[in-house]
């Protein structure tokens, strides 16, 4: 059993929803896909590598249960408690939109009943793989900016006089100091 691999943690949640979810969830997720503020809000939760929601109407290859289910998986760094706290504090309305039609959902605030709900519906991964166990999401995004700045300076370096190069190098370090 392995919900943790390096600095990443896996969460896998499967919950049944009411018939109202059949009407509302397609709309909620349509808005999520098309309104950039939803994904931007998730980006504010800067510790999520990848996350997905999946509507399970039938369990492949085609088995229909009495209820439809919502599958959620996330890959994040930090502790489980911090993660749920952040969801509850930063995007409570979206949590209501997504899980509001699920049986037993207590709402994202206060956070303890919300945690109990997630915990009760969570499945522990039996095997978990992370390609870069030593890196957090923030470090990966910082590294992207650093690499771009280094590549940019490298492309210009040969044509710069040494003193101009030193100035450009120092400018680069200043511009990316938060990413180092």
């Amino acid at each position, binding site marked *: 059993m*392995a919900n943790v*691999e*390096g600095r990443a943690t896996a969460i896998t949640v*499967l*919950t*049944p929803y*009411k018939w109202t979810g059949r009407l509302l969830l397609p709309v909620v*997720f349509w808005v*999520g*896909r098309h309104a950039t503020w939803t994904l931007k809000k998730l*980006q504010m939760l*800067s510790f999520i*590598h*990848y*996350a*997905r*929601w*999946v*509507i399970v109407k039938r*369990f*492949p*290859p085609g*088995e229909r*249960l*009495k*209820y439809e289910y919502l*599958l959620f*998986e996330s*890959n994040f760094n930090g502790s489980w408690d911090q993660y749920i706290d952040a969801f509850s504090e930063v995007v409570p309305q979206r949590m209501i939109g997504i899980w509001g039609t699920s*049986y*037993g959902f207590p709402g994202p605030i206060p956070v303890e009943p919300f945690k109990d709900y997630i915990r*009760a519906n969570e*499945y522990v*991964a*039996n*095997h*978990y*793989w*992370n*390609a*870069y*166990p030593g*890196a957090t*999401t923030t*470090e*990966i*995004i910082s*590294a*992207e900016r*650093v*690499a771009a700045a*280094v590549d940019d*300076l490298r492309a210009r*370096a040969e044509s710069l006089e*040494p003193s101009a*190069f*030193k100035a450009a*190098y120092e400018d680069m*370090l200043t511009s990316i100091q938060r990413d*180092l």
Partner: protein
Amino acid sequence: MSRNVSGQAYALTVLTPIVDGHAPELTAHLDALPEGDDSPLARVGRTHLARWVVIDHVKYQGHGQRHRDHLPPRLLFTSNLDGDLDSYLEALRTALGEDADAVWGHCVGYPGHRDAAGFARWLKAHEIEAALFFAAYGARTVDRVHADLAKRARLIEFALEAQGLEPAALKARFLERF
């Protein structure tokens, strides 16, 4: 665009039925797989983060839920991967080899990794599309993430050792290093 795609990243979600009575053995097998660099999934180079989860029941909530559902056990496989699905499934098949059979061989209708077309067809037949997929760095491949992290580490090291160098030496050292 597919709802499974964000940038160049693809969200693969596969739920396969486990053969009656095989869930405990499959669970034990997955739990015992080596982790980290020795994981079979380490051989599938385009995989950012992936998991296998045995879902042996669905949970009854109460709170107005009138009926109890009974789900025959399923194996969930999810992967956050680079590029297109078809070539990834082929990479998965060839890289996992016998390890794929040792896992999905416990599932109903699995054709085995030696049947290339059947392997891909079977996984795709059990795939479910994401309703919403979030990728914090969906434009970055696994190789690119590794390269960027290495470059950042190299720059940090360089910045420390290059302190106080004269401009000409600084430039020469930078060109040598990058």
